[in-house]
Structures are given as structure tokens and as C-alpha cells.
């Protein structure tokens, strides 16, 4: 019997929601990492019981946690370096140090500002090796572990790709999206607010901006317009890695050539502002967004929580509302807070800043609230377990 495990990161801890394949009856765990912000929790596709979590705090900094039993128990994965006489791990699992000279990026006041590590926004476990995982961090950079999270090392070439022209968005300068190509292990896309999309074809040794065709309302610091775009999220279907979808600060876009060129596909959306975007597990041209009224009013248009689905890869969108609140709704859905399962009937999941987690077990037609009073949801991932 198949089952699903939903990994929810919130402002005050992580929660694990489980159900069988019918996805009707849900069990909600007690909180993990109580009181800490958990930006992201994601499991290895190779060994689903291995899960990485980014636990962070403005007071105490960054912690990487790892579970090897499906989220029942957690430890900072420093054990690879042995334990001290008291039995505590000796590893450096929390150490994220920029490679070489730290360098500077563009700051709010137009000056150059040194890169300063703040937190891990996104964890992307390898598609082939359970000991490998990428981490997207703020200030924006890409790190990788090859030893199960014991140590992390930067892939520094990314920051040398016009890094002096990257600047923080209002939420910070975070690397929030990492897409891995299952057909080509050397090809990776990352997205950064507010720098844009970058692609490597050589495993991170070199990168190039992948932003041509994106709309701009105002002049960018980069006169060539390659960097400086506030990309909120990109997504792809694993079977079709050349087709990318993007929710940008304003407008939804599509690329059919791996990011070389983008075309706007906002179509009939009531607002083209939003954060998450995802792709149906079995229909590569079916995509989902959650429109938000504007960048000044981070809540749904008309106070109605509506997921929009396009079965045509963009431009033509339909509102999905059954089971979602259609009045007095003023929540937001953050960029890492939407996911899909891969059961025969694809399930769609998202979490809100109001602490609700919703699931549609039928591709978006009907929704149920799995839990409604969690701390504000920062991220949602789902594992389909056979």
C-alpha cells in the first residue's frame, strides 16, 4: 500500500503529516525543533528515510539536521567525524563558509557589501546519492555536501557570475530554488532573489545567467539585463528538463529551451504576482500557481484562496476553489510551500502563512485542510512511499 509523508517547515518548528494512499485520514506529528525556524525539510529520493532539515534562528544561527528513520529521530549529521568522549558528534555540519575571498554584492544603498552567511533557505538532495545534497543559502550561494551533511563546501563559481550586481530583495538575498536534471548530472539550475536564474552544464564549475526574455518594469543595475530579476520560483517536470516554468515577482513565464529564452504565460490569471509554482507529477504541461493580489498586499485577490491550474503549460488558467476558503482569507503561500506527490492520482499540497496545510488528492479539483493552526508555513515537501 502506498503512503505519503508531508514535510512541513514552519516559523516555529517542523511537522510531519502522514497518510495512506487514499490521503483522507492524516496523522500530524508533534513539532520537531521547537521554537526554531525551519526553512526547508526534504528527503532523499534514493533513500526516502534520509531527510535533511534546515533549522535556523536569528539568535543562534544555522543548524543542519538529518534523520535516517523517516523523521522519527534527528541529529546534526556530524557523526562522520567521530564523537568526543561525551558521545557528542564532532562534525562541522553547521559550518557554511564562503570559498576564497568573500567578495561583495550590490547593497540597498548602491554600495558594494560583503557577502554574509545568514541561513540555508533550500535543501536539494541528490537524485542518485543519499550522501549528497545541495544547499541554497542567504546571502546567495550554493553549497554541497558529499558526506551526508557532515561538511559543506561552496561551489564558488556561481557568485563570480556577475555577483557584484546581485542585490537583496525585501526578504533577503536568498538562493531558494535548485533544480537537478535527472538526464544530466552536470546540469543544475538555481534561482536567486533578486539576481535571477543561473544554469551550469559542468556540475557547478561555471554558470551563465538564464533570464533572456523576462519582463522588466524598471531599469536593472546590470545594463545587459542578465541579472537583477526577482525570480520567486522555478519548476520543471523531471521527464522534460528543457521546459521550465517560473513565478516571478510579477508574471508567470515559461522556457522551452532550458532557460535560454523565456515567454510570459500569465494569460488570464487574476494577478500574476505570487510565489510558488509546481508541475503535475504525470502531466508535464499541467502547472499550478497561487496568485497573490500584489507585492504590496500579500494576500489572495478578493480574499479568496484560489489555486490556478493551467493544463496547457500556461496562458489558459482555471481557478480551483472547492474546499478552499472563499471569503475573509488573507494568507500568503510562500515560494517553497507547494509540492506534488507521485501517486497515480497526483496530489497537490501547499501551506500558508496562516498555518494551514491543504491537500488535493485529485490534481486540484477538491481540497481538504490537513491541519489549520500550525505556525506560519515556510515550506512543504511530500514524499511518496511505496
Amino acid at each position, binding site marked *: 500500500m502506498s503512503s505519503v509523508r508531508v514535510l512541513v517547515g514552519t516559523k516555529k518548528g517542523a511537522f510531519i503529516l502522514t497518510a495512506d494512499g487514499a490521503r483522507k485520514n492524516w496523522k500530524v506529528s508533534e513539532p520537531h525543533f521547537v*521554537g526554531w525556524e525551519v526553512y526547508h525539510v526534504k528527503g532523499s529520493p534514493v533513500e526516502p528515510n534520509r531527510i535533511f532539515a534546515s533549522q535556523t534562528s536569528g*539568535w543562534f544561527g544555522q543548524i543542519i539536521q538529518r534523520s535516517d528513520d523517516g523523521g522519527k529521530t534527528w541529529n546534526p549529521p556530524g557523526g562522520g567525524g567521530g564523537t*568526543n568522549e561525551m558521545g557528542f558528534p*564532532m562534525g*562541522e555540519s553547521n559550518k557554511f563558509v564562503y570559498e576564497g575571498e568573500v567578495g561583495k554584492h550590490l547593497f540597498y544603498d548602491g554600495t558594494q557589501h560583503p557577502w554574509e552567511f545568514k541561513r540555508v533557505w533550500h535543501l536539494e538532495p541528490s537524485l542518485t546519492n543519499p550522501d549528497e545534497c545541495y544547499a541554497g543559502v542567504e546571502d546567495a550561494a550554493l553549497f554541497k555536501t558529499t558526506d551526508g551533511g557532515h561538511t559543506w563546501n561552496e561551489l564558488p563559481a556561481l557568485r563570480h557570475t556577475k555577483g557584484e550586481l546581485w542585490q537583496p530583495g525585501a526578504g533577503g538575498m536568498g538562493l531558494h530554488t535548485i533544480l537537478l536534471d535527472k538526464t544530466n548530472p552536470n546540469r543544475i539550475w538555481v534561482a536567486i532573489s533578486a539576481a535571477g536564474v543561473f544554469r551550469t552544464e559542468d556540475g557547478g564549475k561555471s554558470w551563465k545567467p538564464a533570464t533572456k526574455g523576462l519582463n522588466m518594469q524598471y531599469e536593472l543595475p546590470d545594463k545587459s539585463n542578465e541579472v537583477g530579476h526577482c525570480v520567486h520560483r522555478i519548476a520543471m517536470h523531471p521527464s522534460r528538463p528543457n521546459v521550465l516554468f517560473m513565478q516571478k515577482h510579477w508574471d508567470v513565464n515559461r522556457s522551452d529551451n532550458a532557460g535560454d529564452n523565456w515567454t510570459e504565460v500569465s494569460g488570464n490569471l487574476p494577478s500574476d504576482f505570487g510565489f510558488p509554482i509546481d508541475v503535475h507529477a504525470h502531466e508535464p504541461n499541467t502547472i499550478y500557481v497561487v496568485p497573490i493580489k500584489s507585492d504590496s498586499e500579500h494576500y489572495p485577490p478578493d480574499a479568496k484562496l484560489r489555486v490556478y491550474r493551467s493544463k496547457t503549460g500556461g496562458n489558459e488558467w482555471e481557478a480551483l476553489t472547492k474546499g478552499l476558503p472563499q471569503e475573509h482569507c488573507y494568507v500568503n503561500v510562500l515560494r517553497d510551500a507547494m509540492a506534488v506527490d507521485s501517486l497515480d492520482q497526483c496530489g497537490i499540497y501547499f501551506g500558508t502563512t496562516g498555518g494551514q496545510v491543504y491537500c488535493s488528492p485529485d490534481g486540484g479539483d477538491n481540497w481538504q485542510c490537513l491541519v489549520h493552526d500550525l505556525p506560519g508555513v515556510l515550506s512543504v515537501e511530500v514524499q511518496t512511499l511505496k
Partner: protein
Amino acid sequence: MSLIRVEIPFHLRTLTKIEGREVTVEVTPPVTIGSVLDAVEAKYPVLRGTIRDHVSLKRRPFLRFYVCEEDWSNLPADTPLPEAILTGQEPFAIIGAIAGGW
């Protein structure tokens, strides 16, 4: 060798899975702010980076160090600690700043 009592804030106690508010660490003289923190991090390696920056060893902005109810947060790391700390009469207190948040 001195046995030094160190008060640990809640979130770091849950991280290290220690019981109670305090831990005890052995510190080879001279007993200073820095050598006590070195001893805490040696005994509980997961705390490296959570009290002081990994590289610069600067105190994290929203943590404070209290000694005999006085704020020693901004004193140099090589500042010697007083007799009351050395004898265990008082703990060296690492406090999460009582300020804001969400």
C-alpha cells in the same frame, strides 16, 4: 583545571539535548570568556557557530554573556573571569537577548 558552571539558553539546550539549565566544563587556566566558550564548544561541538561565528569567533548579535549579573558581552575574549565563577559560586551565563522576534 577549573570546573566552570555555564548557563545555556533554552534553544541550545534542546539542540544539545542536555538536561537542566546549566552544564559544567573543565577549563585550563587562564579562565577567560574565550577559554570557557572554547571548552563549551569542545564538549558540545554542535554549539560551534551558534554562540560565536565559526570563522571570526565574534559573539552572535542576539546573545549576551552575563557574569555575576553584569553584562560582559562586549568585553574582549581574553578577559579573565572573577573568583565567583572560578569557584562555581556563580555560573557564566549565556543568555538569548530578551528582544523582539516572532
